[in-house]
């Protein structure tokens, strides 16, 4: 007998499934990304106890265009994670996913009924990210 469990591939690839399945993958990846940032953030701010000089030098290193871009990526991750997380919290309280009813072919499901709200949130993410991009790169500091 072969086990045939999909394993990591099972959650990391959404294949033909709908956008919400992709959203689920992104939620996990962005969540892990934010944790990674948290660790780096603790490491960097930890330099404060080593005195002013150490702090200045690490601040120099951190003010690098690539790291600045990573900060922007982090910003996108947080916005996406928070808004999509908001959708998941609502869904888990049964909000916005509809009620059970008589199914008539072609069937509609909770996933379909939530799509509008999902698109609305993704639109919000886009707007906030654009505003953020302006703040990160266009507006004078």
């Amino acid at each position, binding site marked *: 007998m072969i086990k045939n469990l999909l394993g990591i591939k099972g959650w990391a690839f959404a294949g*033909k499934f709908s956008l919400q399945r992709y959203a689920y*993958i992104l939620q996990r990846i962005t969540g892990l990304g934010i944790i990674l940032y948290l660790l780096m953030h603790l490491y960097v701010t930890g330099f404060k106890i080593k005195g002013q000089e150490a702090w200045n030098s690490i601040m120099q290193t951190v003010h690098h265009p690539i790291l600045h871009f990573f900060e922007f990526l982090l910003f996108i991750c947080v916005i996406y994670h928070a808004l999509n997380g908001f959708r998941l919290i609502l869904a888990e309280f049964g909000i916005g996913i509809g009620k059970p009813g008589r199914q008539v072919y072609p*069937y509609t499901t909770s996933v379909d009924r939530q799509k509008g709200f999902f698109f609305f949130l993704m639109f919000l993410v886009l707007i906030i990210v654009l505003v953020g991009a302006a703040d990160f790169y266009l507006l004078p500091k």
Partner: protein
Amino acid sequence: MAEKNLESKFERHIKDVTFKILRYSGEGDSTKFEEFKVPVIGGMTVLEGLIYIKENLDSTLSWRASCRMGICGSCGMFINNFPMLACQTQIMDLKSDVIEIKPMPNYPIIKDLVPNLDKLIEKHKSIKPYTLRKEGTPEEIEGEFCQSVEELERYEEFTFCIKCGICLAACPTVATAEEFLGPQALTQAYRYSVDTRDQGYEERKEVVDNPLGVFRCHFAGSCSEACPKGVDPALAIQLLKKTIVKDSVFGKKLENNAKVLPITQENPKKKENIKPAPPKSVE
């Protein structure tokens, strides 16, 4: 001679489609794809394609099917990388000249396209998929339970489950956590618990409210997309989460008290003044 028979059998022949099937002998752990050319006629399902192969090309090919009408739940397969019922999927609807068929993932393979569904059935049994009563079993009660249409609709769509296991093949959580109860069993836990005739919520809560139970679900929604019967397991699971949170956090228990009417009593809502049926127009 045989050739000729075949041709007449497939006179509405539309095109030839290649079936690319993952073969597994049942021993060891080597699998390989094998290709078969299948002549397609209008309305032909993937299952009929498999039957064609077994009858004409390779009699050793194994799969599981029974009703060939989407009701027994035997023929779930991974068809062009999506879990579907072979008997409910028409070849022409796949809009492809190559059809790749693999056994449903997340289940052990017994042979070729035959998955081992033991776990599914075990999980289903574990949530006690039958009416549990505290105040007298249906047999003890001399009467019948009263249930409104609204009360029926709370669980009706979840009763359509045929235990095909397609939802677990679609589930990204089962993919990494084999012991996760999964959409099928959790849906049935909700289906029975909100049935007004049932009083087993407490018992089922013990089974589903644990790290491998209902809160392991991330609402990726794939079970609902794949379910061939419109059961919408994702909906049932979220409602089950809500029910348990209401109980555990806010102390609002789910309680069912279906009214029992004596069998002899007339329907209380029976309408008066209904016109008699018109006379027969033919004998």
